[in-house]
């Protein structure tokens, strides 16, 4: 049994002259929840689509649970479960009918099919609505069913592409708990999201993509240490004009009365400059970096509309 459930080696995809995904190397370890982050157009969905066999790669190789996605594609696809970003459900069918159909695509039949459908309905928390048409469901209920349809065949690797978009806090919590339970039961999860706090809560390791490349990969602690910047955080007193002047004089970024000093700068002259601008220093300490800081540091603050 391979240590890596998903192994990407130089995997890339071109659309005409545009490189959607360059040539990425990535390993997802068995039993972990792995986060894939990136701004819009970074290549996350294309990467996932290649791993799932939905899009043919232009270059490189990928293997799911040891099965090559080109040479042994059906075994690879059987080992993977896709929870697409879209609510990929038949609205005119019930949850039971949706789950039954998608389970049959993976060869489930008879009593195993029936028990697996019951299990997935339970995981989705839809037991009392299993016979109702999906079109009558709320967004949260559809999201939960979307997740259930992706895991109905108990794949080795569950790929969740932004599975909590537009859901209420209760459904989001339900989805988190379900994913954690699946991981505890041995399933590996590849998780993409724009919500940093989700990734921080769920993921054991994270890769950040930008412009079709992996720009960082590691545990959240490793990433914040390497890319979070740290630096010094200074809380200053004084009116708004004084605080603004102090920020300019020290070359700091300002967030209200907090001034953030770049760790690459020598900070003693900056403290002198703050005091010289007329501000009083109330507190001074090490700045705690989070995943969002890392993300913005690595991918920049420019808008990504593509």
């Amino acid at each position, binding site marked *: 049994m391979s240590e890596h459930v998903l192994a990407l080696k130089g995997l890339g995809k071109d659309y005409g002259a545009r490189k959607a995904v360059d040539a990425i190397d990535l390993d997802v370890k068995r039993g972990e929840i792995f986060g894939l982050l990136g701004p819009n157009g970074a290549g996350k969905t294309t990467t996932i*689509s290649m791993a*799932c*066999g*939905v*899009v*043919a790669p232009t270059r490189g190789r990928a293997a799911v649970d040891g099965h090559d996605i080109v040479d042994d*594609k*059906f*075994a690879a*696809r*059987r080992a*993977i479960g*896709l929870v*697409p*970003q*879209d*609510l*990929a*459900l*038949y*609205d*005119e*069918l019930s949850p039971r*009918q949706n789950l*039954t*159909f*998608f389970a*049959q*695509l*993976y*060869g489930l039949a008879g009593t195993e099919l029936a028990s697996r459908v019951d299990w997935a309905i339970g995981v989705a928390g839809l037991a009392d609505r299993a016979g109702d*048409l999906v079109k009558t469901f709320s967004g949260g209920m559809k999201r939960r069913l979307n997740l259930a*349809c*992706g895991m109905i065949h108990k794949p080795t690797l569950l790929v969740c592409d932004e599975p909590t978009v537009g859901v209420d806090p209760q459904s989001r919590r339900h989805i988190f708990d379900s994913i954690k339970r699946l991981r505890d039961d041995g399933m590996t999860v590849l998780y993409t999201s724009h919500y940093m706090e989700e990734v921080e809560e769920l993921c054991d390791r994270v890769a950040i993509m930008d412009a079709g490349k992996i720009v960082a990969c590691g545990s959240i602690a490793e990433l914040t240490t390497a890319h979070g910047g740290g630096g010094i955080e200074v809380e200053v007193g004084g009116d708004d004009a004084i605080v603004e002047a102090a920020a300019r004089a020290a070359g700091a970024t300002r967030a209200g009365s907090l001034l953030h000093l770049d760790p690459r700068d020598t900070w003693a002259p900056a403290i002198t400059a703050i005091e010289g601008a007329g501000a009083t220093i109330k507190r001074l300490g090490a700045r705690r970096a989070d995943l969002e800081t890392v993300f913005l540091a690595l991918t920049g603050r420019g808008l990504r509309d593509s």
Partner: protein
Amino acid sequence: MPGILRPTIEKEILLLKRDPRVLVRLIVMPVAFIALFGMAFKGQERRAKELHPVIVFRDLAASRGVAIVEALKGSGMFNVVEAKNAEEVRAKVEKEDFDVGVVIDHDFDPLGGRPAHLVIDKNGPQQKTQPLIGSISAIATRAFVGGPPPPKVVDIVDPTDPAHAQEQASPFQLTVPGNAVLFGFFIALTCALGFAEERRSGTWRRLLAAPVPAWKLLVAKLVPYVALGMIQVGTLFAIGVFAFGMKIQGSVIALAVLTFAVACAATACGLMIASFSSTEKQISSLGSVLILIMGLVGGCMFPRMLMPHVMQQIGLGVPHGWALDGYYTLLVRSGAGFADVMPQIGAVFGFAALFALIGLRRFRFDT
């Protein structure tokens, strides 16, 4: 490899059952069209069998005109209504109560250069005015000249092989196949919209991620529409037979095979439409126009046999023309069998293959 045909067919049937628009488009609308067209053709047929009304005024002084009036009455072609005066004849023809009138005045004397008057709108449709002018003139002339019946100068020859003698087509034998083929091809629209819906909702992406070959997904997606097409056309023919008294003179098995070919062509046409369009709007507009033009050219709305020769030939450039030729043969020609419609069945299957080939070459399997 998991068998996906049965689950996919079951799923498609469930989805189609829950969409009442499909039932309206595929069954209710064509039945309404068949009933309306059938009634209209039936009215025309009844009028064609009725004697043509003609209003006649003969002045009592025009004694030599009596023979003409009697000849018109005895011709078996006209229902002669006598008017009180010449003005009444002119007024009733002008009001279009009658297509034609005859006035025989008191000074009626053809040898003296004073003939009877045929009152008719000379600018009316030629196919109506010319036969009236010709037949009334001939009857009046013969009645005036008198003498023994003339010898037969022209005989009528029917070139049809007596073994293939066919009955006069009834109105429903024309309208049922026409509407069945026209609306049968609306399956193409339903099928293409099915693909667009799968793409829009993201289910197509989920299907592509399953351990199933893409061609199997495609076949499984198309088969229910072929079955639906057969059920639809079969239902329309059954309604034609049981509700409207339409006769099927030829082989029912050949009829079923031809229907299978039509359902295949319509479904393949759906694949082709889906491959040329990416949104439901595009499919609706492109598909509707294509289906209606093919139906019009192929003779579904107006029988091809009544079209100019060039249009009749153009009609064979679409499957509808071939399908209708086959259906008319099987409905009207007594004892017509599989061999009699082999070219039509072959041609319709040929169109199915062509549409499928074009559709497959352009169809985007990925998302």
